[in-house]
Protein backbone atom coordinates (compact mmCIF):
# COMPACT_ATOMS: atom_id res chain seq x y z
CA UNK A 1 0.00 0.00 0.00
CA UNK A 2 1.28 3.50 -0.86
CA UNK A 3 2.15 5.57 2.16
CA UNK A 4 3.33 9.09 2.69
CA UNK A 5 5.38 9.83 5.82
CA UNK A 6 4.20 6.44 7.03
CA UNK A 7 0.53 7.31 6.57
CA UNK A 8 -1.55 5.34 4.05
CA UNK A 9 -2.54 7.52 1.11
CA UNK A 10 -6.11 6.45 1.51
CA UNK A 11 -6.30 7.75 5.06
CA UNK A 12 -4.56 10.94 4.04
CA UNK A 13 -6.95 11.69 1.20
CA UNK A 14 -9.93 10.66 3.26
CA UNK A 15 -9.02 13.14 5.96
CA UNK A 16 -8.18 15.84 3.45
CA UNK A 17 -11.65 15.41 1.95
CA UNK A 18 -13.24 15.63 5.39
CA UNK A 19 -11.16 18.71 6.03
CA UNK A 20 -12.32 20.23 2.78
CA UNK A 21 -15.95 19.54 3.69
CA UNK A 22 -15.54 21.16 7.09
CA UNK A 23 -13.65 23.97 5.39
CA UNK A 24 -16.61 24.49 3.05
CA UNK A 25 -18.86 25.16 6.02
CA UNK A 26 -16.26 27.31 7.76
CA UNK A 27 -15.89 29.36 4.59
CA UNK A 28 -19.59 30.09 3.98
CA UNK A 29 -20.28 30.78 7.62
CA UNK A 30 -17.27 33.01 8.18
CA UNK A 31 -18.00 34.81 4.91
CA UNK A 32 -21.43 35.77 6.23
CA UNK A 33 -19.97 36.82 9.56
CA UNK A 34 -17.30 38.90 7.83
CA UNK A 35 -19.81 40.74 5.64
CA UNK A 36 -22.08 41.44 8.59
CA UNK A 37 -19.24 42.55 10.82
CA UNK A 38 -17.73 44.73 8.11
CA UNK A 39 -20.86 46.71 7.41
CA UNK A 40 -22.91 46.51 10.61
CA UNK A 41 -20.15 46.25 13.20
CA UNK A 42 -22.12 43.45 14.76
CA UNK A 43 -20.44 40.25 15.88
CA UNK A 44 -23.29 37.99 14.93
CA UNK A 45 -23.32 35.25 17.51
CA UNK A 46 -26.70 34.08 16.21
CA UNK A 47 -24.99 32.85 13.05
CA UNK A 48 -24.71 29.26 14.25
CA UNK A 49 -28.32 29.18 15.32
CA UNK A 50 -29.42 30.47 11.92
CA UNK A 51 -27.30 27.82 10.21
CA UNK A 52 -29.09 25.23 12.33
CA UNK A 53 -32.38 26.89 11.40
CA UNK A 54 -31.51 26.46 7.72
CA UNK A 55 -31.12 22.72 8.25
CA UNK A 56 -34.40 22.57 10.17
CA UNK A 57 -36.26 24.54 7.51
CA UNK A 58 -35.04 21.96 4.98
CA UNK A 59 -36.25 19.15 7.23
CA UNK A 60 -39.63 20.84 7.82
CA UNK A 61 -40.14 21.54 4.13
CA UNK A 62 -39.63 17.86 3.46
CA UNK A 63 -41.58 16.56 6.43
CA UNK A 64 -44.56 18.92 6.49
CA UNK A 65 -44.79 20.19 2.91
CA UNK A 66 -43.17 17.43 0.93
CA UNK A 67 -40.65 19.73 -0.76
CA UNK A 68 -37.29 18.03 -1.25
CA UNK A 69 -33.64 19.00 -1.09
CA UNK A 70 -33.45 21.21 -4.19
CA UNK A 71 -36.45 23.23 -3.11
CA UNK A 72 -34.94 23.57 0.33
CA UNK A 73 -31.66 24.79 -1.10
CA UNK A 74 -33.54 27.74 -2.60
CA UNK A 75 -36.25 28.30 0.00
CA UNK A 76 -34.46 27.79 3.31
CA UNK A 77 -31.99 30.66 2.73
CA UNK A 78 -34.97 32.89 1.89
CA UNK A 79 -36.80 31.90 5.06
CA UNK A 80 -33.70 32.34 7.22
CA UNK A 81 -32.84 35.60 5.44
CA UNK A 82 -36.36 36.95 6.04
CA UNK A 83 -36.15 35.94 9.68
CA UNK A 84 -32.80 37.75 9.88
CA UNK A 85 -34.31 40.88 8.34
CA UNK A 86 -36.98 40.92 11.03
CA UNK A 87 -34.34 40.45 13.75
CA UNK A 88 -32.26 43.28 12.30
CA UNK A 89 -35.18 45.70 11.99
CA UNK A 90 -36.73 44.94 15.36
CA UNK A 91 -33.67 44.38 17.57
CA UNK A 92 -30.19 44.68 16.10
CA UNK A 93 -30.74 48.08 14.43
CA UNK A 94 -31.10 49.61 17.89
CA UNK A 95 -27.51 48.80 18.78
CA UNK A 96 -25.47 50.33 15.95
CA UNK A 97 -24.45 53.36 17.94
CA UNK A 98 -23.22 51.26 20.87
CA UNK A 99 -20.11 49.20 21.50
CA UNK A 100 -19.60 45.84 19.68
CA UNK A 101 -20.14 44.12 22.97
CA UNK A 102 -23.87 44.90 23.00
CA UNK A 103 -24.41 43.38 19.58
CA UNK A 104 -22.52 40.31 20.67
CA UNK A 105 -24.59 39.96 23.83
CA UNK A 106 -27.86 40.45 21.99
CA UNK A 107 -27.08 37.97 19.23
CA UNK A 108 -25.70 35.49 21.76
CA UNK A 109 -28.99 35.73 23.64
CA UNK A 110 -30.90 35.28 20.39
CA UNK A 111 -28.83 32.19 19.60
CA UNK A 112 -29.70 30.66 22.97
CA UNK A 113 -33.39 31.40 22.50
CA UNK A 114 -33.54 30.02 18.97
CA UNK A 115 -31.63 26.88 19.94
CA UNK A 116 -33.77 26.44 23.04
CA UNK A 117 -36.97 26.64 21.05
CA UNK A 118 -35.82 24.01 18.58
CA UNK A 119 -34.49 21.79 21.36
CA UNK A 120 -37.85 21.99 23.11
CA UNK A 121 -39.69 21.05 20.00
CA UNK A 122 -37.41 18.45 18.45
CA UNK A 123 -35.13 17.15 21.20
CA UNK A 124 -31.41 16.71 20.82
CA UNK A 125 -31.13 13.27 19.28
CA UNK A 126 -31.07 14.63 15.74
CA UNK A 127 -33.37 14.07 12.78
CA UNK A 128 -32.24 12.23 9.67
CA UNK A 129 -32.22 13.97 6.29
CA UNK A 130 -31.48 11.84 3.26
CA UNK A 131 -28.99 12.67 0.54
CA UNK A 132 -30.95 13.59 -2.62
CA UNK A 133 -31.03 10.67 -5.02
CA UNK A 134 -29.27 12.68 -7.75
CA UNK A 135 -26.24 12.95 -5.50
CA UNK A 136 -26.15 9.52 -3.88
CA UNK A 137 -23.34 7.13 -4.70
CA UNK A 138 -19.81 8.20 -5.45
CA UNK A 139 -16.70 7.99 -7.56
CA UNK A 140 -13.88 5.49 -7.15
CA UNK A 141 -10.69 7.56 -7.42
CA UNK A 142 -7.17 6.06 -7.39
CA UNK A 143 -6.64 6.63 -3.69
CA UNK A 144 -10.09 6.93 -2.28
CA UNK A 145 -13.82 6.72 -2.65
CA UNK A 146 -15.37 10.16 -3.23
CA UNK A 147 -19.04 10.37 -2.28
CA UNK A 148 -20.90 12.53 -4.79
CA UNK A 149 -22.72 14.50 -2.14
CA UNK A 150 -19.49 15.54 -0.46
CA UNK A 151 -18.01 16.65 -3.76
CA UNK A 152 -21.19 18.65 -4.33
CA UNK A 153 -20.88 20.37 -0.96
CA UNK A 154 -17.38 21.56 -1.79
CA UNK A 155 -18.40 22.75 -5.26
CA UNK A 156 -21.58 24.46 -4.04
CA UNK A 157 -19.77 26.21 -1.22
CA UNK A 158 -16.92 27.37 -3.46
CA UNK A 159 -19.41 28.62 -6.03
CA UNK A 160 -21.43 30.58 -3.51
CA UNK A 161 -18.31 32.06 -1.94
CA UNK A 162 -16.82 33.10 -5.27
CA UNK A 163 -20.13 34.49 -6.52
CA UNK A 164 -20.52 36.52 -3.34
CA UNK A 165 -16.98 37.78 -3.64
CA UNK A 166 -17.54 38.77 -7.28
CA UNK A 167 -20.71 40.66 -6.42
CA UNK A 168 -18.90 42.54 -3.67
CA UNK A 169 -15.78 43.32 -5.68
CA UNK A 170 -17.11 43.82 -9.18
CA UNK A 171 -20.63 45.26 -9.07
CA UNK A 172 -22.19 48.60 -8.31
CA UNK A 173 -24.07 47.01 -5.42
CA UNK A 174 -20.78 45.74 -4.05
CA UNK A 175 -19.24 49.20 -4.43
CA UNK A 176 -22.01 50.62 -2.23
CA UNK A 177 -21.36 47.87 0.28
CA UNK A 178 -17.61 48.50 0.35
CA UNK A 179 -18.06 52.26 0.56
CA UNK A 180 -20.66 51.99 3.32
CA UNK A 181 -18.34 49.64 5.22
CA UNK A 182 -15.66 52.36 5.10
CA UNK A 183 -17.71 55.47 5.72
CA UNK A 184 -21.47 54.98 6.10
CA UNK A 185 -22.09 58.61 7.01
CA UNK A 186 -20.64 59.92 3.76
CA UNK A 187 -22.44 57.32 1.64
CA UNK A 188 -25.64 58.41 3.34
CA UNK A 189 -24.77 62.06 2.62
CA UNK A 190 -24.70 61.14 -1.08
CA UNK A 191 -28.35 60.14 -0.91
CA UNK A 192 -27.97 56.38 -0.44
CA UNK A 193 -30.37 54.59 1.89
CA UNK A 194 -27.71 53.06 4.11
CA UNK A 195 -30.07 51.66 6.76
CA UNK A 196 -31.80 49.64 4.04
CA UNK A 197 -28.40 48.34 2.98
CA UNK A 198 -27.62 47.26 6.52
CA UNK A 199 -30.89 45.36 6.74
CA UNK A 200 -30.42 43.61 3.41
CA UNK A 201 -26.80 42.80 4.21
CA UNK A 202 -27.75 41.18 7.47
CA UNK A 203 -30.46 39.27 5.66
CA UNK A 204 -28.00 38.11 3.00
CA UNK A 205 -25.32 37.18 5.54
CA UNK A 206 -27.67 34.96 7.51
CA UNK A 207 -29.18 33.56 4.31
CA UNK A 208 -25.68 32.25 3.60
CA UNK A 209 -25.81 30.54 6.99
CA UNK A 210 -29.21 29.08 6.07
CA UNK A 211 -27.78 27.80 2.80
CA UNK A 212 -24.90 26.16 4.66
CA UNK A 213 -27.45 24.58 6.99
CA UNK A 214 -29.22 22.92 4.06
CA UNK A 215 -25.91 21.66 2.67
CA UNK A 216 -25.10 20.24 6.09
CA UNK A 217 -28.44 18.52 6.69
CA UNK A 218 -27.63 15.28 4.79
CA UNK A 219 -24.10 15.07 6.23
CA UNK A 220 -24.64 15.76 9.91
CA UNK A 221 -28.03 14.96 11.33
CA UNK A 222 -30.41 17.89 11.74
CA UNK A 223 -29.82 18.82 15.35
CA UNK A 224 -30.56 21.90 17.47
CA UNK A 225 -26.97 21.91 18.70
CA UNK A 226 -25.30 21.72 15.30
CA UNK A 227 -24.86 25.49 15.14
CA UNK A 228 -23.44 25.85 18.62
CA UNK A 229 -20.85 23.16 17.84
CA UNK A 230 -19.54 24.77 14.68
CA UNK A 231 -19.84 28.47 15.49
CA UNK A 232 -16.99 28.55 17.99
CA UNK A 233 -14.61 27.15 15.37
CA UNK A 234 -16.00 29.58 12.79
CA UNK A 235 -15.32 32.51 15.10
CA UNK A 236 -11.74 31.31 15.43
CA UNK A 237 -11.57 31.19 11.61
CA UNK A 238 -12.86 34.75 11.39
CA UNK A 239 -10.33 35.96 13.94
CA UNK A 240 -7.50 34.23 12.08
CA UNK A 241 -8.59 35.57 8.70
CA UNK A 242 -9.18 39.06 10.05
CA UNK A 243 -12.55 40.42 11.17
CA UNK A 244 -14.35 41.89 8.20
CA UNK A 245 -12.04 40.59 5.46
CA UNK A 246 -14.23 38.99 2.79
CA UNK A 247 -11.65 37.09 0.80
CA UNK A 248 -9.67 36.35 3.97
CA UNK A 249 -12.61 34.58 5.54
CA UNK A 250 -13.11 32.31 2.52
CA UNK A 251 -9.45 31.38 2.08
CA UNK A 252 -8.96 30.91 5.80
CA UNK A 253 -12.11 28.78 6.05
CA UNK A 254 -10.99 26.28 3.44
CA UNK A 255 -7.37 26.28 4.57
CA UNK A 256 -8.16 25.66 8.21
CA UNK A 257 -10.51 22.85 7.27
CA UNK A 258 -7.59 21.22 5.46
CA UNK A 259 -5.19 21.92 8.31
CA UNK A 260 -7.64 20.28 10.68
CA UNK A 261 -7.87 17.26 8.36
CA UNK A 262 -4.08 16.93 8.14
CA UNK A 263 -3.78 17.17 11.89
CA UNK A 264 -6.20 14.27 12.23
CA UNK A 265 -3.82 12.18 10.12
CA UNK A 266 -0.52 13.16 11.63
CA UNK A 267 -1.36 14.06 15.20
CA UNK A 268 -4.99 13.19 15.94
CA UNK A 269 -4.73 14.27 19.57
CA UNK A 270 -4.43 17.91 18.47
CA UNK A 271 -7.14 17.90 15.80
CA UNK A 272 -9.79 19.46 18.02
CA UNK A 273 -7.53 22.25 19.20
CA UNK A 274 -5.26 23.01 16.25
CA UNK A 275 -7.45 25.88 15.00
CA UNK A 276 -7.44 27.53 18.39
CA UNK A 277 -3.69 27.15 18.69
CA UNK A 278 -3.33 28.84 15.30
CA UNK A 279 -5.71 31.55 16.45
CA UNK A 280 -3.56 32.28 19.48
CA UNK A 281 -0.40 32.38 17.37
CA UNK A 282 -1.98 34.68 14.79
CA UNK A 283 -3.30 36.99 17.49
CA UNK A 284 0.16 37.22 19.00
CA UNK A 285 1.91 37.94 15.71
CA UNK A 286 -0.75 39.78 13.68
CA UNK A 287 -3.61 40.90 15.92
CA UNK A 288 -5.71 42.19 12.99
CA UNK A 289 -5.72 38.70 11.45
CA UNK A 290 -3.90 37.36 8.40
CA UNK A 291 -5.97 39.36 5.91
CA UNK A 292 -7.07 42.13 8.26
CA UNK A 293 -6.23 45.77 7.85
CA UNK A 294 -4.50 47.19 10.87
CA UNK A 295 -6.57 50.19 11.79
Amino acid sequence: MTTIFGVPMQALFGQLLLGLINGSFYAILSLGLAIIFGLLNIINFAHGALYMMGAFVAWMLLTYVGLGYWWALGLAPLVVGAFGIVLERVLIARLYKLDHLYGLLLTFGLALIIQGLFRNQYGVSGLPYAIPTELSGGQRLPFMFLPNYRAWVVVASLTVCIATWLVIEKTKLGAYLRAATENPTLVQAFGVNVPLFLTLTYGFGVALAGFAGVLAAPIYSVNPNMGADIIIVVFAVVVIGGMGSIIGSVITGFTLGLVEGLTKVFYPEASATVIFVIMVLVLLVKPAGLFGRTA
Partner: protein
Amino acid sequence: MKTVTPAAATGALLTVRGLEGWYGESHVLHGIDIDVRTGEVITLLGRNGAGKTTTLRAIIGILGKRAGSIVYDGVETIRMASRNIARLGIGYVPEERGIFASLTVHENLMLPPRVKPGGMSVAEIHTLFPNLKERAGSQGTKLSGGEQQMLAIGRILRTGAKLILLDEPTEGLAPVIVQQIGRTIQQLKAQGYTIILVEQNFRFAQTLADRHFVIEQGRVVDMIPNAELDANIDKLHAYLGV
Protein backbone atom coordinates in the same frame (compact mmCIF):
# COMPACT_ATOMS: atom_id res chain seq x y z
CA MET B 1 -28.76 93.68 16.72
CA LYS B 2 -28.80 92.69 13.11
CA THR B 3 -32.22 92.24 11.52
CA VAL B 4 -32.77 88.92 9.84
CA THR B 5 -35.21 88.40 7.02
CA PRO B 6 -37.48 85.41 7.63
CA ALA B 7 -36.70 82.34 5.53
CA ALA B 8 -39.80 82.56 3.39
CA ALA B 9 -39.14 86.11 2.30
CA THR B 10 -35.57 85.96 1.04
CA GLY B 11 -36.18 84.29 -2.30
CA ALA B 12 -32.90 82.47 -1.71
CA LEU B 13 -32.07 78.92 -2.78
CA LEU B 14 -30.81 78.14 0.71
CA THR B 15 -31.83 79.96 3.84
CA VAL B 16 -30.26 79.10 7.17
CA ARG B 17 -31.79 80.67 10.25
CA GLY B 18 -30.76 80.32 13.88
CA LEU B 19 -28.86 77.13 13.16
CA GLU B 20 -27.48 75.45 16.26
CA GLY B 21 -25.37 72.34 16.26
CA TRP B 22 -23.82 69.93 18.74
CA TYR B 23 -21.17 67.22 18.85
CA GLY B 24 -22.49 65.11 21.69
CA GLU B 25 -22.75 67.48 24.64
CA SER B 26 -20.58 70.18 23.15
CA HIS B 27 -22.56 73.04 21.66
CA VAL B 28 -20.66 74.25 18.60
CA LEU B 29 -23.05 76.31 16.44
CA HIS B 30 -24.91 79.09 18.22
CA GLY B 31 -27.33 80.49 15.68
CA ILE B 32 -25.92 80.65 12.16
CA ASP B 33 -27.80 82.82 9.64
CA ILE B 34 -26.88 82.49 5.97
CA ASP B 35 -28.73 82.85 2.71
CA VAL B 36 -27.49 81.86 -0.70
CA ARG B 37 -29.17 82.87 -3.93
CA THR B 38 -29.29 80.64 -6.97
CA GLY B 39 -26.06 80.84 -8.95
CA GLU B 40 -24.15 82.55 -6.19
CA VAL B 41 -20.78 81.55 -4.78
CA ILE B 42 -20.49 82.43 -1.12
CA THR B 43 -17.65 81.67 1.24
CA LEU B 44 -17.54 80.87 4.89
CA LEU B 45 -14.44 82.46 6.38
CA GLY B 46 -13.21 82.07 9.92
CA ARG B 47 -10.43 80.85 12.13
CA ASN B 48 -9.69 77.22 12.82
CA GLY B 49 -12.44 75.75 14.91
CA ALA B 50 -14.90 78.57 14.16
CA GLY B 51 -17.56 76.13 12.98
CA LYS B 52 -17.32 76.28 9.16
CA THR B 53 -17.12 72.52 8.62
CA THR B 54 -19.80 71.99 11.24
CA THR B 55 -22.09 74.37 9.36
CA LEU B 56 -21.69 72.36 6.15
CA ARG B 57 -22.22 69.11 8.05
CA ALA B 58 -25.40 70.56 9.51
CA ILE B 59 -26.66 71.62 6.08
CA ILE B 60 -26.13 68.17 4.56
CA GLY B 61 -27.60 66.59 7.70
CA ILE B 62 -24.75 64.51 9.08
CA LEU B 63 -24.33 66.45 12.31
CA GLY B 64 -25.65 64.40 15.24
CA LYS B 65 -27.87 67.12 16.66
CA ARG B 66 -29.02 70.36 15.10
CA ALA B 67 -31.79 72.89 15.62
CA GLY B 68 -33.08 76.01 13.92
CA SER B 69 -34.14 76.17 10.30
CA ILE B 70 -32.51 75.20 7.01
CA VAL B 71 -34.76 75.74 4.02
CA TYR B 72 -33.53 74.51 0.65
CA ASP B 73 -35.58 75.27 -2.42
CA GLY B 74 -38.66 75.80 -0.26
CA VAL B 75 -38.21 72.60 1.77
CA GLU B 76 -37.46 72.68 5.50
CA THR B 77 -34.70 70.11 6.03
CA ILE B 78 -33.84 70.47 9.70
CA ARG B 79 -35.55 67.20 10.60
CA MET B 80 -34.73 65.28 7.42
CA ALA B 81 -32.25 62.38 7.14
CA SER B 82 -29.10 63.29 5.22
CA ARG B 83 -29.91 60.91 2.37
CA ASN B 84 -33.14 62.79 1.73
CA ILE B 85 -31.43 66.17 1.95
CA ALA B 86 -28.89 65.03 -0.64
CA ARG B 87 -31.76 63.94 -2.86
CA LEU B 88 -33.09 67.50 -2.94
CA GLY B 89 -30.00 68.33 -4.97
CA ILE B 90 -27.22 69.15 -2.52
CA GLY B 91 -23.74 67.72 -3.08
CA TYR B 92 -21.14 67.53 -0.34
CA VAL B 93 -17.37 67.60 -0.81
CA PRO B 94 -15.96 67.00 2.66
CA GLU B 95 -12.82 68.58 4.09
CA GLU B 96 -11.09 65.18 4.36
CA ARG B 97 -12.24 64.47 0.77
CA GLY B 98 -13.74 61.12 1.65
CA ILE B 99 -12.22 59.05 -1.15
CA PHE B 100 -12.91 55.36 -0.55
CA ALA B 101 -9.83 53.16 -0.32
CA SER B 102 -11.71 49.99 -1.22
CA LEU B 103 -13.03 51.51 -4.46
CA THR B 104 -11.20 52.31 -7.67
CA VAL B 105 -11.10 55.87 -8.99
CA HIS B 106 -13.87 55.00 -11.42
CA GLU B 107 -16.00 53.35 -8.74
CA ASN B 108 -15.52 56.38 -6.51
CA LEU B 109 -16.63 58.59 -9.38
CA MET B 110 -19.74 56.51 -10.03
CA LEU B 111 -20.70 55.97 -6.39
CA PRO B 112 -22.98 58.92 -5.57
CA PRO B 113 -26.36 58.24 -7.13
CA ARG B 114 -27.91 60.79 -9.49
CA VAL B 115 -30.22 62.96 -7.46
CA LYS B 116 -31.41 65.40 -10.13
CA PRO B 117 -31.39 65.46 -13.91
CA GLY B 118 -28.74 67.50 -15.68
CA GLY B 119 -25.60 66.20 -14.00
CA MET B 120 -22.37 66.04 -15.96
CA SER B 121 -21.50 62.96 -17.97
CA VAL B 122 -18.38 61.00 -17.13
CA ALA B 123 -16.83 62.29 -20.36
CA GLU B 124 -17.41 65.90 -19.28
CA ILE B 125 -15.87 65.21 -15.90
CA HIS B 126 -12.87 63.60 -17.58
CA THR B 127 -12.47 66.70 -19.75
CA LEU B 128 -12.53 68.82 -16.62
CA PHE B 129 -10.09 66.54 -14.77
CA PRO B 130 -8.09 64.48 -17.28
CA ASN B 131 -6.08 62.79 -14.51
CA LEU B 132 -9.18 60.97 -13.35
CA LYS B 133 -9.47 59.30 -16.73
CA GLU B 134 -5.85 58.20 -16.80
CA ARG B 135 -6.07 56.73 -13.34
CA ALA B 136 -9.57 55.29 -13.55
CA GLY B 137 -8.46 51.82 -12.50
CA SER B 138 -6.24 52.85 -9.58
CA GLN B 139 -7.26 52.51 -5.98
CA GLY B 140 -8.97 55.75 -4.96
CA THR B 141 -6.60 56.60 -2.16
CA LYS B 142 -3.52 56.00 -4.35
CA LEU B 143 -4.21 59.34 -6.05
CA SER B 144 -2.27 62.45 -5.08
CA GLY B 145 -3.98 64.94 -2.78
CA GLY B 146 -4.91 67.17 -5.72
CA GLU B 147 -6.31 64.29 -7.73
CA GLN B 148 -8.34 63.11 -4.74
CA GLN B 149 -9.81 66.59 -4.48
CA MET B 150 -10.71 66.52 -8.18
CA LEU B 151 -12.32 63.14 -7.67
CA ALA B 152 -14.26 64.39 -4.66
CA ILE B 153 -15.59 67.30 -6.72
CA GLY B 154 -16.04 65.31 -9.93
CA ARG B 155 -18.20 62.63 -8.37
CA ILE B 156 -20.59 65.30 -7.07
CA LEU B 157 -20.89 66.94 -10.49
CA ARG B 158 -22.24 63.65 -11.88
CA THR B 159 -25.19 63.68 -9.50
CA GLY B 160 -27.02 66.70 -10.80
CA ALA B 161 -26.77 68.47 -7.44
CA LYS B 162 -27.32 72.20 -7.92
CA LEU B 163 -25.93 73.37 -4.58
CA ILE B 164 -22.39 72.24 -3.85
CA LEU B 165 -20.78 72.39 -0.44
CA LEU B 166 -17.01 72.63 -0.85
CA ASP B 167 -14.97 72.37 2.33
CA GLU B 168 -11.46 73.79 1.89
CA PRO B 169 -10.87 72.30 -1.55
CA THR B 170 -7.40 73.87 -1.82
CA GLU B 171 -6.08 72.88 1.60
CA GLY B 172 -2.54 71.55 1.37
CA LEU B 173 -2.38 71.60 -2.44
CA ALA B 174 0.34 72.93 -4.74
CA PRO B 175 -0.29 76.36 -6.34
CA VAL B 176 -0.89 74.94 -9.83
CA ILE B 177 -3.54 72.59 -8.50
CA VAL B 178 -5.11 75.43 -6.52
CA GLN B 179 -5.35 77.41 -9.76
CA GLN B 180 -6.91 74.48 -11.55
CA ILE B 181 -9.51 74.10 -8.84
CA GLY B 182 -10.12 77.84 -8.93
CA ARG B 183 -10.78 77.68 -12.66
CA THR B 184 -13.10 74.74 -12.14
CA ILE B 185 -15.14 76.62 -9.57
CA GLN B 186 -15.37 79.60 -11.93
CA GLN B 187 -16.56 77.29 -14.68
CA LEU B 188 -19.17 75.77 -12.40
CA LYS B 189 -20.37 79.20 -11.41
CA ALA B 190 -20.68 80.14 -15.08
CA GLN B 191 -22.81 77.03 -15.58
CA GLY B 192 -25.20 78.18 -12.89
CA TYR B 193 -24.15 76.03 -9.94
CA THR B 194 -24.63 77.50 -6.49
CA ILE B 195 -21.62 76.99 -4.25
CA ILE B 196 -20.82 77.35 -0.57
CA LEU B 197 -17.07 77.44 -0.27
CA VAL B 198 -15.18 77.13 2.98
CA GLU B 199 -11.79 78.72 2.50
CA GLN B 200 -8.92 79.83 4.72
CA ASN B 201 -7.28 81.77 1.90
CA PHE B 202 -9.51 84.78 1.30
CA ARG B 203 -7.25 86.00 -1.51
CA PHE B 204 -8.22 82.85 -3.36
CA ALA B 205 -11.84 83.22 -2.29
CA GLN B 206 -11.90 86.78 -3.55
CA THR B 207 -11.39 85.62 -7.12
CA LEU B 208 -14.51 83.45 -6.97
CA ALA B 209 -17.08 84.58 -4.47
CA ASP B 210 -19.95 87.03 -4.51
CA ARG B 211 -20.22 87.38 -0.76
CA HIS B 212 -18.25 86.31 2.29
CA PHE B 213 -19.76 85.23 5.59
CA VAL B 214 -17.43 85.50 8.55
CA ILE B 215 -17.94 82.91 11.25
CA GLU B 216 -16.64 83.21 14.76
CA GLN B 217 -17.34 80.75 17.54
CA GLY B 218 -20.38 79.28 15.87
CA ARG B 219 -22.00 82.55 14.82
CA VAL B 220 -22.02 84.62 11.64
CA VAL B 221 -20.45 87.88 12.78
CA ASP B 222 -20.24 89.67 9.45
CA MET B 223 -21.17 89.49 5.80
CA ILE B 224 -18.92 91.25 3.30
CA PRO B 225 -19.88 91.59 -0.36
CA ASN B 226 -16.91 90.70 -2.54
CA ALA B 227 -16.70 94.20 -4.00
CA GLU B 228 -16.17 95.58 -0.50
CA LEU B 229 -13.56 93.04 0.51
CA ASP B 230 -10.55 95.27 -0.10
CA ALA B 231 -12.13 98.14 1.79
CA ASN B 232 -12.69 95.84 4.74
CA ILE B 233 -9.32 94.18 4.66
CA ASP B 234 -8.19 95.34 8.11
CA LYS B 235 -11.42 94.17 9.68
CA LEU B 236 -11.04 90.84 7.96
CA HIS B 237 -7.48 90.45 9.16
CA ALA B 238 -8.71 91.02 12.66
CA TYR B 239 -11.45 88.40 12.25
CA LEU B 240 -9.10 85.82 10.86
CA GLY B 241 -6.18 86.70 13.12
CA VAL B 242 -3.74 86.90 10.24
